[in-house]
């Protein structure tokens, strides 16, 4: 966890900045104001860390994995929004105590009279809004696209909140070096975002000339998209990885969605498979051949370079896509378990049979509801019965969050050590 250590060290540095600039805390008002200052500094630092986690930095994407980064981002986001709220309330309270005024009056003074605090207030409400729509309950009711786009307001909020730190922050007013260091931190993360989220994908587009070459309907509501291009081997994509795809056509160009490679990558064509589930994936099924595509990636830490092991692949629903690619690519003794609640959801049946025969691997389909199957088909006992030598295997999982959680528990119970269970969720 060197990344977490680095984040922690940065936070310590921020506290040190406060420590070295604060003479002493003498009264209760001082305590409150300084608590507010510390939280404000931490929030100003943390909000940039949150952006950095999402900056698609290759070492982070590879070492930590997109899904874990997204989870950290979500958890950290809640924390930072709490910090910002507490910062605002404590500063109001502390200043009101110092000035011997009421908190309402003081709030007004702060917003209207203090330099740039009005902008910072707008920023705080923007961030609060983004936090609220990202909360689980609200997220479920929003379209992915709406949620995704609302997130861009965080950049605006960070920009709006920046100047009040220097204009009113006691740690920065007096210290040019603190201002320089702080600005450098913001700028470096900002340029990383620009580089990895904008420049690199555009460069990839110019180099590889991605275009949709064909569509193939796999099942009702599930469609495979073939994306052609040149020098695709230079991308060094591996089975199990995904790209963020931005289809340059009306209604789709403004969003980049993550879809896994569902077949071995070729030097001139990649394949993804998408289940209609939201506006974006719905529109994907109506793509026309020839449509240009910007591909960001490859991402994903589930990629397989390990060899010579016995492997279990466990897919749930459309989670088969990355495992389908791995099923063809993995060396050694491979067993695939494919869980679906309805036979109509099963895709790649022919392909899987062909691969299984060609390499002498086994595929088990577990189809139907729990009631139909007479119990949990993914319990430790069932898995052990199905997969010989289960506890010796390397396990790769992909599917809905609930299923994966249950499957991880079952695998652990069946004696598979945690480090040999690999999964990536696609709920980010």
């Amino acid at each position: 966890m060197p990344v977490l250590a680095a984040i922690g060290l940065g936070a310590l540095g921020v506290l040190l900045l406060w420590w070295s600039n604060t003479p002493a805390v003498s009264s209760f008002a001082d305590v409150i104001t300084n608590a507010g200052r510390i939280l404000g500094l931490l929030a100003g630092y943390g909000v940039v860390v949150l952006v950095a986690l999402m900056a698609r930095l290759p070492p982070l994407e590879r070492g930590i994995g997109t899904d874990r980064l997204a989870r950290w981002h979500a958890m950290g986001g809640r924390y930072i929004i709490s910090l910002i709220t507490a910062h605002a309330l404590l500063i109001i309270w502390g200043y009101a105590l110092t000035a011997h005024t009421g908190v309402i009056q003081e709030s007004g003074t702060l917003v209207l009279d203090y330099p740039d605090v009005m902008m910072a207030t707008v920023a705080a409400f923007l961030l609060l809004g983004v936090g609220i729509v990202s909360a689980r309950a609200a997220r479920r009711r929003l379209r992915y696209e709406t949620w995704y786009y609302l997130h861009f307001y965080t950049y605006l909020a960070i920009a709006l909140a920046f100047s009040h730190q220097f204009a009113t922050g006691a740690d920065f007013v007096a210290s040019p070096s603190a201002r320089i260091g702080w600005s450098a931190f913001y700028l470096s993360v900002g340029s990383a975002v620009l580089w990895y989220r904008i420049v690199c994908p555009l460069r990839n587009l110019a180099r590889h000339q991605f275009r949709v070459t064909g569509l193939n309907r796999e099942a009702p509501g599930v469609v495979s998209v073939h994306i052609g291009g040149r020098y695709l081997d230079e991308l060094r994509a591996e089975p199990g990885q995904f790209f963020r795809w931005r289809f340059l056509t009306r209604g789709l160009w403004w969003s980049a969605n993550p879809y896994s490679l569902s077949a071995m990558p070729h030097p001139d064509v990649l394949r993804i498979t998408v289940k209609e589930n939201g506006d974006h994936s719905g529109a994907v099924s109506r793509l026309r051949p020839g449509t240009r595509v910007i591909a960001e990636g490859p991402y994903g830490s589930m990629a397989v370079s390990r060899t010579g092991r016995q492997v279990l692949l466990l897919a749930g629903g459309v989670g088969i896509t990355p495992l389908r690619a791995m099923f063809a690519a993995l060396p050694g003794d491979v067993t695939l378990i494919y869980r679906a609640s309805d036979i109509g959801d099963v895709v790649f049946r022919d392909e899987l049979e062909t691969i299984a025969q060609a390499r002498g691997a086994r595929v088990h389909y577990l189809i139907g509801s729990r009631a139909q199957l007479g119990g949990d088909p993914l319990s430790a006992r069932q898995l052990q019965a199905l997969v010989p030598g289960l506890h010796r295997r390397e396990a790769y999982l992909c599917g809905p969050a609930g299923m994966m959680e249950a499957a991880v528990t079952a695998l652990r119970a069946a004696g598979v050590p945690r480090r040999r269970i690999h999964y990536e969720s696609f709920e980010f």
Partner: protein
Amino acid sequence: MRRIVFAVGGTLAGLAMLLSFKSHSSVGLAGIAAGAADSKPYSQASAGASGASGTTGGAGAKPGSVTTAGGGRLITGDVANTAYGPVQIQVTLTQNKITKVAVLEQPQSTENDIRIGDFAFPKLIQETLAAQNDKIDSVSGATYTSGGYIKSLQSVLDNGV
């Protein structure tokens, strides 16, 4: 749930620790020092300079005293450096009574410094006029500013009265 408890608890504990260390790390007014040695206050003879109304306003006025038109004496105190910036005051003495106090310099690097001064100085001045000496209480929430004020006032009384 447990994570939330950890996050909130950890933050509160950290804050409490930092703030309590800070409140013990230096005693009340240790940060306050008198002005530099080369600006030692001096009391100027009021050699007929009755027309000059002394130096009011302007930062870093030279400590000293002049006689005003009304027969009072205008005494400028030392610059007292506080952790938040310098404080300097000027006292008008009429028949050895403090009749007026003006603030020549105050911490103003942040908006909050200015506001702290805005509410603290009137109180300090009021106290001074009432007490007629430097045995006045500092204003809570403005400990440093008060300390600087008292220091500058002391230098006036030491040298001018």
